[in-house]
């Protein structure tokens, strides 16, 4: 395991934990995080020497960018909506929105793969501001920061004298997802206690 693989492993573990905790109470979040986690798992394998997974990892990352993050924004923004509360509805959303994004990106509108997650981050940010959720706001800012690193960061730059662009992206993303989903997790736990 090299540094990139370790950062993807941290992201994958964070996604797995969030997915397990939200599967029943917030399937929309679980489906979105599952997709992000799957691309992280592919990343672990790719960065650990399975070069054959280079293409699939990049493809899964593209699907996450154009499908999973919009779903995450939707599920966090409207947690009582059918798309957030019913797994089959979440899958439909991510399949159709993701398909549009993949088609647009591979047919030359490459900016779609940046605009879709950026819009998702903006929606999440606005939502957390409206909710006055400090943790959620921190998560939204971390998410925006991770996308900024992905969009404008250069491969040679060393951040904080320690991390390259890929690693910083993964750690920021893991922290962002944990912070963003902490509130729904906490709500879910108190609901479970009250039952």
């Amino acid at each position, binding site marked *: 395991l090299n540094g990139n693989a370790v950062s993807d492993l941290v992201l994958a573990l964070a996604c797995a934990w969030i997915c397990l905790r939200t599967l029943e109470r917030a399937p929309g979040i679980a489906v979105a995080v599952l997709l992000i986690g799957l691309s992280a798992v592919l990343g672990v394998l790719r960065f650990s020497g399975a070069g*054959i997974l280079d293409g699939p990892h*990049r493809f899964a990352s593209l699907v996450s960018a154009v499908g999973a993050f919009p779903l995450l924004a939707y599920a966090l923004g*409207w947690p009582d909506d*059918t798309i957030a509360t019913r797994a089959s509805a979440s899958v439909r959303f991510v399949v159709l929105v993701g398909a549009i994004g993949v088609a647009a990106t591979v*047919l030359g509108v490459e900016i779609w793969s940046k605009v879709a997650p950026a819009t998702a981050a903006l929606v999440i940010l606005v939502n957390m501001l409206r909710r006055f959720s400090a943790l959620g706001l921190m998560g939204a800012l971390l998410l925006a920061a991770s996308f900024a690193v992905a969009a404008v960061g250069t491969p040679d730059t060393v951040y904080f004298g320690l991390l390259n662009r890929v690693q910083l992206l993964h750690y920021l993303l893991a922290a962002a997802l944990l912070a963003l989903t902490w509130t729904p997790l906490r709500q879910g736990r108190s609901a479970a206690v009250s039952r």
Partner: protein
Amino acid sequence: VNPIVYAIPVFLLTILIEAWIAHRRGAAVYHVGDAVTSLHLGVLSQVTNSFAKLATLGIYAAVYENFRAATWPTDRVVAWVVALLVYDFFYYWFHRLSHEVAVLWAAHVVHHSSEYFNLSTALRQTSTGTALGWLFYLPMAVAGVPPAMFVAVALINLLYQYWPHTQLIGKLGWVDRVFVTPSNHRVHHGQNDYCMDRNYGGILIVWDRLFGSFAEEREDEKVCFGVRKPLASFNPLWGNAHYYVDLWHASRRARGWRDKLHVWLSPPGGWPMGPMQHFEPREFRKFEPGTPLPLISYAVVHYTLSTALLTHFLLVFARLDSIQAWTYALAIAVSVLSIGGLLERVGWARRLEQLRLFVLGAAIVALPLWFGSTMPAALRAALGLVAAASLVWISRQTMRREAGGAGAAA
């Protein structure tokens, strides 16, 4: 050349053989108006797919070029077999979601809109399904199935699905448990309670057994084919568009953008809130507009000519510039629309048919080349005569709506 060109004569011949056998057995398997409509929808889908496949195959090829893990060898039989199995797996899910997601059902409903079940029903294909169907197969591109191999296995899968559309073949024992066969595909096309949302497989029925969507054909209940909200039309354009129009109206009625979104993403009829409404087979009545025999004969003759046009269109499509291609496609679309309208005896159909015969007849006689192909003078003269004779004959016919007042057409 589009391989479907070579399949068209086989399709038409086997349909005639099936109709003849059914007639000899006294089985009411065919209705000429319904069969011609199915064939019209097949014609239309081939025309639209000629355009749409350029885009959708382009997406597949782009994903294959940029994201593939490996390159599958095209000279290994095992690679082809696995590719066919993988395609069939993804087809199962595409087909299942085509029944379970409203926007996908809008494209697929046309295939189920026939209230008869015969080989012509197999050709009753959507003109809009390609728009979203491609996305289900992208994992194959990522896995490294070359576009040529993908196209070939897709064609094999499609052609396999032709033969299960018949009532003349009964149960086949163990074959019914492994493959998609007439018996289990009849269930798929049924609207009886036990048939709803069952048997989605393309080649293998084992996917349905694995994922819990299999139902065996019952001996004690006759399958009623079609959809719960009947199309009741022979118009191939309306057949393709009607459910989209329903969704459009439903989304306009919905309050707020999220409810509007749900209209398109939910199962047809909305998220299940309770048990499905009971269907009573004994109360089922098939669509019958009462088209007179001469008009049916006229439609069959002109369908045959439309098929000749389609075959030529598919043969020369790659050589046409975009204006020629769209003009040719429009001519074929107007032809099937007009003949469908005549079969249904709607008021506007006679005027449209007169216009079509005049324009097409004049074009065939006057133009030196027919979309880049030389047509023998004798053939041009014969087609010109057919158009002229048809024009005279159709001008003397009276449509139901013209004769009987408004609202007669279903």
